[in-house]
């Protein structure tokens, strides 16, 4: 499928957590969109709340093999030919939260009122028409950037990467994360956030006190 991931004039989306100033302009801009007015489909996370004011904007990373869609029992989540993983289809979504639990980045949210999972769809209505996503147009520090990769490579010290490891799970995404040049693959050791239970290697349990 050659078309997948090559749309949008070669522009790509870049997230740079080190540039985020926590202003939440991206969330406000997202919530202004007519298709989901009043609801922001992205959020700003505190990375280590007790010790730092550092924040990072969390947009959907648009996995090449989207885990959320793979676990959907209602066949409600689709990846378009542009590589963008769409919000759940309203007639199909049963608000079961499987995608919420499965997403390694914590992106999808289930809205109880309309019984619908809604998540960042990279404003494909805008990007397909040559516009930038809402959040990238308003971000004052360009922690969220939509542009040509070669320009980003020239302007930034950090290196764009789109490969992540969560324990044994290897995830490749459409959206790029700016990371130190020393780490071409961002590895999150899931076990750092867990403690071993009594019943051997299968007995990992989440240590919620360490999740922050």
């Amino acid at each position, binding site marked *: *499928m050659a078309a*997948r991931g090559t749309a949008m004039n070669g522009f790509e989306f870049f997230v740079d957590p080190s540039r985020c100033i926590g202003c939440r302009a991206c969330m406000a801009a997202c919530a202004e969109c007519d298709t989901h007015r009043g609801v922001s489909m992205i959020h700003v996370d505190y990375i280590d709340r007790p010790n730092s004011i550092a924040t990072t904007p969390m947009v959907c990373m648009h996995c090449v093999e989207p885990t959320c869609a793979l676990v959907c029992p209602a*066949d409600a*989540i*689709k*990846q*378009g*030919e542009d590589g963008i993983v769409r919000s759940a289809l309203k007639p199909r979504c049963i608000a079961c939260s499987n995608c919420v639990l499965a997403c390694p980045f914590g992106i999808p949210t289930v809205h109880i009122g309309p019984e619908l999972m809604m998540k960042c769809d990279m404003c494909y209505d805008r990007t397909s028409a040559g516009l930038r996503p809402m959040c990238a147009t308003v971000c004052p520090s360009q922690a969220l950037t939509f542009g040509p990769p070669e320009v980003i490579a020239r302007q930034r010290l950090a290196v764009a990467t789109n490969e992540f490891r969560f324990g044994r799970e290897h995830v490749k995404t459409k959206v790029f994360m700016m990371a130190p040049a020393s780490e071409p693959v961002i590895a999150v050791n899931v076990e750092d956030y867990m403690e071993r239970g009594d019943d051997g290697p299968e007995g990992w349990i989440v240590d919620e006190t360490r999740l922050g």
Partner: protein
Amino acid sequence: MDPKDGSSTKPAWAEEFSVYAAEDAYVQRRQFTKFLVMTSAAMVAGNAWIWLKAVTAEERTEWPEAVVARASEIAPGTVRFFSYPGPHDPCILVRRTNGEFTAFSQKCTHLSCAVYYAAARDRLECPCHEGYFSAANGRVLQGPPPRPLPQIRMEQRGDDLVAVGLVHGEGE
């Protein structure tokens, strides 16, 4: 992942309900042909079943008798309604303007609207789609009905009008 690649190891359901929109919408020529053949076969089988039922159907010969009205109580140009042969088979008994009694199923053979007797024109008329039937024998005079109205055979015994059978008209 390439839908045109026949060597895919994914189970059939995963291809049918694919995560990828393009793959989801993609229909193989073989799938389409299979669909055509299967639906055609189903239609042939259905028609064969209907044809078999029609061929093997037996003409009903036993009919109940039912007194439906008294002849002296019906003025020429008026009607009586009754049910025959069952309680849910509405019928209309007509005393035509010339004094003759005839009776028909009241359900239009087009879409089962209730027909009424138009005394001025001496015919049965269906108001839904302007289907007209002869009041003499139920034959279609105009409109969309494909068959004549089923006629109720009547006998007059003294003053009693007795329904003794039902005759299905043949198609035009």
